[in-house]
């Protein structure tokens, strides 16, 4: 009888579910959470900085806004979105390929703004403003060319994108 009881108890013990110790996993998750919360940025601007582009440091603490992004790298290649639209190889006041691209963008923006007005929605982002991301080593000539072209294409407001932690 005793022997039979012992066998049945042993079987019951075997059936008990295996319990995982998740304490260490929880520790890691909490650390990750703190790290991610620290790097959280409430800015509505999302930016993928291209290669060969070193953004200048600044003491500014103003968060970025959604607007067309113009990036110019060390080699004076001009990027809009995720594609190269041309290379600046002269010192003329206006950059033709950038002007054309901005004009197309302006037409699209105006159409969106019109439809948003018709639907009584709030117009997203800043109108007539471009975000300029320039490599810190580039001379003022390039900045002037970009600003001149943008202003002529209907974007007279400029936001210089800079790196924090100065």
């Amino acid at each position, binding site marked *: 009888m005793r022997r039979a009881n012992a066998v049945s108890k042993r079987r019951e013990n075997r059936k008990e579910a295996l319990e995982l110790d998740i304490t260490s996993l929880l520790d890691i998750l909490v650390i990750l959470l703190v790290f*991610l919360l620290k790097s959280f940025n409430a800015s509505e601007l999302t930016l993928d900085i291209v290669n060969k582009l070193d953004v200048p440091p600044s003491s500014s603490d103003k968060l970025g806004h959604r607007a067309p992004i113009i990036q110019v790298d060390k080699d004076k290649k001009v990027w809009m979105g995720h594609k190269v639209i041309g290379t600046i190889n002269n010192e003329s006041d206006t950059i033709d390929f950038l002007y054309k691209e901005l004009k197309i963008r302006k037409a699209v923006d105006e159409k969106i703004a019109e439809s948003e007005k018709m639907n009584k929605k709030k117009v997203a982002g800043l109108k007539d403003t471009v975000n300029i991301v320039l490599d810190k080593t580039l001379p003022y000539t390039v900045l002037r060319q970009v600003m001149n072209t943008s202003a002529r294409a209907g974007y007279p*407001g400029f936001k210089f994108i800079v*790196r924090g932690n100065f």
Partner: protein
Amino acid sequence: MKRRKMNKIPKLNLIPILDAVFIFIFFLLMSAQFVDIYEIGTDAPTVSEIEPSKDKTPPLNLTLIITSEKITIQKGLNQTVVDSIKKIGKDYDYKKLKLSLKKIKIHNIDEVTIILKPLKSISYEKIVMIMDTVRGVDPTDAPIVAKNKKGKTIQTRDLFNQVIFETII
């Protein structure tokens, strides 16, 4: 046997909190930016058709002429030279520039605009540093307190935060 059962500490069910933390992590991972990105605003100079103001005091017209050797501060319609800040080593003397601008700001507390006139060869990094200098006082410095034209006492930490580049268009 009963006493042994009573002494067992009840285990917390951590699964719901773990689920929530996982979802939170994915949300934060999606919105994380590992480079702190900020902006500095500026505008193209515009021509507007506004009636001239009745105030007959001449405009400040504060201008910085930036060359590779020095920064010259000019003001007024005649572009009178107020100060000239030379380089110390490879960099401009930003402290001296800020001090000069503070003196001008005390006498023109309502003024917020400054015009930058850099040479073509000046690097973008230097321009950003000059813009940082002219926009406001350091966080460790005391704010500027002065009376405006109407006799009202104004306290501000801003110097000339509306930066305009000359000769863009």
